[in-house]
């Protein structure tokens, strides 16, 4: 079932029809909210299963999981690993250029970008390669449902490629970020793709042709993730004298209107969405290594729980367990541990696993058998780590982990 973006019950915030000339500027064609049903927890004891060196190269922001295959971008190579971390196949880029974090479609085709946009099939063979202009390179893709993948490139443009052919469907210049960093294509929902460039007037673009959609009415309010009910979760950096960002958190409707917001009384930022579009927010004091707190908000902005002492949420499991990640060191130093949390009612700890003297670097994937995978750096070596959890896969929420799902598609389903 498809619908226009409507917001929390009781707030009458469904997207109001703007003047006819602007109708198409709002987000449309959004999927219905997913089931609220939660699976039973696995009867296992959470523990670290293994950690294996997989490369000396730098890996990207997140892993991907396609069936029983883990996919890792390691420098100029995409690695296809089995669930034991053993290499099945690999594919080097044509120019030995660095490959971005992978996204995977239902057929197992991997999309990644470097000096070219690459589609790589499950056997590690190129399906297509589309070059960027000389000197231009792309960043991680967002995979949409319209047969297109999206990336921001160092030429300051948002690029859309056809997944079937690699043909450039459209390209729109939106500007680069400070330091000539490319636009960050963060997410997509319905007919909209979200691309963040600091200082640019708009961030939502029509997924099919790149036409700008309704710009954010407030300056510097940048989108992060979409929820079926909550809308677009956005944040704005307020003055932060200390180490941690004070973010005003806002929910925007499909026409980019603010429906509710949370002003920061101390550093805070949005993390994930649990089932029912419950927004998980991290709070802490503006003191380095201060304790972290977790607050839970409903899709209407009502605070449901917390703030309670808890590590920042990292994954939401299918059993409703929020898996928090505690990293005590700076940078990627440990010690670190995973903590299973219940957020139904009061926030409480269910289990904890000490990880060791490093902190994960990549966003994780969580398989149906409860095994969580991520990478971390031990010195200059990247290790793949497997941890048994109680959660049989990801929650059915709209944003249960960074990059939204195990495949890293970043598109609201």
């Amino acid at each position, binding site marked *: 079932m498809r619908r226009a973006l409507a917001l929390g019950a009781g707030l009458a915030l469904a997207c109001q029809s703007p003047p006819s000339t602007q109708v198409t500027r709002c987000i449309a064609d959004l999927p219905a909210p997913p089931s609220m049903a939660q699976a039973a927890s696995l009867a296992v004891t959470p523990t670290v299963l293994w950690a294996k060196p997989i490369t*000396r190269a*730098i890996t990207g*922001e997140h892993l991907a999981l396609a069936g029983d295959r883990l996919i890792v971008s390691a420098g100029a190579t995409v690695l296809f690993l089995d669930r034991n971390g053993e290499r099945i196949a690999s594919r*080097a880029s*044509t*120019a*030995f*250029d660095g490959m971005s974090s992978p996204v995977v479609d239902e057929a197992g085709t991997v999309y990644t970008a470097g*000096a*070219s946009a690459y589609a790589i099939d499950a056997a590690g063979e*190129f399906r297509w*390669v589309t*070059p*960027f202009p*000389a*000197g231009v390179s792309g960043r991680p893709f967002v995979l949409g449902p319209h047969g297109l993948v999206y990336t921001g490139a160092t030429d300051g443009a948002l690029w859309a490629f056809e997944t079937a052919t690699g043909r450039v469907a459209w390209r729109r210049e939106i500007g680069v*970020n*400070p*330091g000539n*960093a490319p636009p*960050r294509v963060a997410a997509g929902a319905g007919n909209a793709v979200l691309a*963040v*460039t*600091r200082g640019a007037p708009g961030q939502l673009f029509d997924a099919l042709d790149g036409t700008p959609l309704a710009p954010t009415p407030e300056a510097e309010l*940048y989108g992060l993730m979409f929820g079926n009910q909550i809308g677009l979760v956005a*944040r704005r*950096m307020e003055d*932060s004298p*200390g*180490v*941690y*960002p004070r*973010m005003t958190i806002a929910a925007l409707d499909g026409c980019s209107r603010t429906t509710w917001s949370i002003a920061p009384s101390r550093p805070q*930022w949005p993390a994930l969405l649990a089932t029912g579009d419950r927004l998980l927010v*991290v709070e802490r004091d503006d003191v*380095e290594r201060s304790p*972290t707190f977790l607050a839970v908000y409903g899709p209407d902005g009502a605070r449901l729980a917390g703030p309670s002492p808890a*590590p*920042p949420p*990292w994954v939401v499991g299918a059993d409703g367990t929020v898996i928090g*990640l505690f*990293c005590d*060191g*700076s*940078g*990627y*130093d440990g010690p670190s541990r995973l903590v299973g949390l219940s957020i139904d009612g009061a926030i409480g700890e269910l289990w904890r696993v000490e990880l060791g*003297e490093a*902190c*994960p670097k990549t966003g994780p994937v969580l398989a149906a058998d409860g095994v969580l995978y991520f990478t971390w*750096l*031990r*010195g*200059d*070596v990247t290790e793949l780590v497997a941890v048994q959890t109680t959660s049989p896969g990801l929650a059915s929420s709209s944003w249960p982990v960074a990059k939204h799902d195990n495949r890293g598609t970043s598109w609201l389903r």
Partner: protein
Amino acid sequence: MAPRWPTSASASTRCSALVVAAAGLLVGSTARAESGWLVAVSDGVTLEVPLFAGAHVYTVEEEGGGLDARLEVVGAAGPVGSDEDSGVDRMAHLRLEADCPAPCRIDVGAGASVTLVWDQERETSDADGDGLGAELEVFLGTDPNDPDTDGDGLSDGIEIEGLETDAGIVKLRRWGADPLTADIFVEADWQPCDPIVESCGINMSLDQHRLSDGAVARFAAFFAPDFALHVDHGQWGGGERRAQGEYGCNPDLLGPRFGMFHQAVTSALGSGGGADYAFCFGGDSVRMGVMAQELGHNFGLEHGGNPRGESVNCKPHYRSPMNYAYTYDPSVVGFSRGTNAVELRPTALDELAGLGTNDPAILAGLAAPPFELTVRPDGAIDWNRDGRFDPLVRGAPTWAYASCEQSMTHNQSLGDGWDPTLAWVGGRMALVHRAGDGALALRWATRFDLCDPALIAAACTDLGEASVPIPGAVSSSAPALAATDQGSLLVVWADPARHLRAAELDVETWRERGAVDDVEVSGDPAVVVVGGRVLVLAPAAQGLYRWELGADGFGAPIAERWTDGAPIAAGPGVAPALAGDELFAAIPEGPLGLIELGRLDVATDRWERMPETIWQVARGYAAARPGLAWAHDRLYLAWKPFPYGAALLTMSEGLDRAPEATSQRLRFLRPNLFTNIWGTIAGAASLAWDPEAASLRGAWGFGTTSSRVTFYPFADGIVDLVLRDQDDYAFIRDHLACSLSASCP
């Protein structure tokens, strides 16, 4: 009058113990008693000797100790002097204006422990002018006649007392300075992490790119124990978050620390840079091998160590973070000590001797990336990678898959221009390039032996800056060159209408050889002389075509085919090379330019596609005509990767295609960077064999949107140099001081 601080009983006991502990040093002789220092003093000490007018008494902060000390010196008759400078963060310093007869009591009001120094001779016996009296230096163990005993560029006095200026206080002692240990101080700023557009870790820290304590420990380990590395990554008030544009090689950023600190900035993964013989560098906040290398550059170390002129990257026996082959090697956690006495000479390598060791760990390291050398348990190493172990070979021991610059030695930039192409003609090397307007121009090199081994970055050929235009030759793509059997130079090009043209230089006279006006080529042409025939190959109309160039000009085009009858698809252009009496060609096919190796089958006059197995690791994709050459009994292949990037180079083990062969096989090694990851190639690559010097020469345009003609006289990496290990620590020691002020000679 300064207040006096009552001494508690427990404190007195503690101080007494200190005095007793120091008594042997202080009271054993009158002279020694007049100067001294004591650590961890919290209340005061009583000296059993007098202090005289002119003595200096001061406190020095200790890590974790007091920050606001005040002093009072009290003799038997009452107070003799006090220091009222009690501003926060300032330690006390008092010059006695009158004698303090024994027992002379020095009270310290610091609230926490400090180091107390009293120096009777600062004004009367400081021969080296370092601010420490001679007896105090004896007590400290420093050299009274050397202002910088440990040679680290920081004077003994400053390492003890620190430095107070109007711009701030430099508390070297508190931060770990020791005048007897060479110290290296670094102020490490960091770029902010922007959580809107970056990944700032689970803690969403704006300081995600700041060096962590663990990273600092790993960084310091590279220098220990010879040098004590101290890094202010924010804990001492120096290192701070700095937005882009707010950092750089700027002494002002260090303020009063300039001349004592190196200045660094750390950032997200994947960056690094360090100025030679200077005080500033940067790198990412995770990989400390990179940071060690960049700081090593500050001390003048190059990727091959020292001296700079002979610094060749990726020497296998130089295990240093300076060496690209070892920068990321987790087993390399320190600089090289120069313990490997083996000298490697690429022009004369003893594979049986290897590196003079059969240490399994070392051999295993050489067998692993990035060298991937074949080794034997007895220590033999297949330096030239031909699958055999021989007592004397030519090879490139610096060949490794790590941006190793093995072909970069003595390279020569010849100004703006595109697609330089080489041919060995009558005992000299021709180099033709096209200018920005397409005009072709020629240079000759007759000498390649003008190399100063101490200046590997300097050119050593007689190739001149100036080139001579080829009359009427304007090319839309890379030109093609060949030597005729008569010893003249043949040039083929595609004109602006993409029609083939040919000209021949016989002695000093150019003459036109013909044109093809009815076919538009779609890529770079190639020309080869084989068996008395001149063959021109060029992509056109989705395929690869051949023309024979005879006395009457170009013949009719023939569509090239594989031996299975399939047409050869057009690519950017092919590279033929004669290997003995066989003609091979690197043939990039299709839109990605997937490189195939073909051998012209004389019987069928078609190209035999070499099997997939010749590509040992990864196939190449060429965006322009590659370069192929037969040299050292193997094929070398260079190309511009698709769609752009650093020039790539590989070589085959040999040419043996027999299934049972175990050495010198037709198998290409893993593609390697021709120079380094910054060596972006603009267009076609060219390789040519110099039979007189037995060297492989190379040329290509360096750049992306612009291009500089660059010549590589030792493309095979085989240079007549002696490659040695070296002691980095000794070199660093020699440059500790001058690097601080960027004043090294």
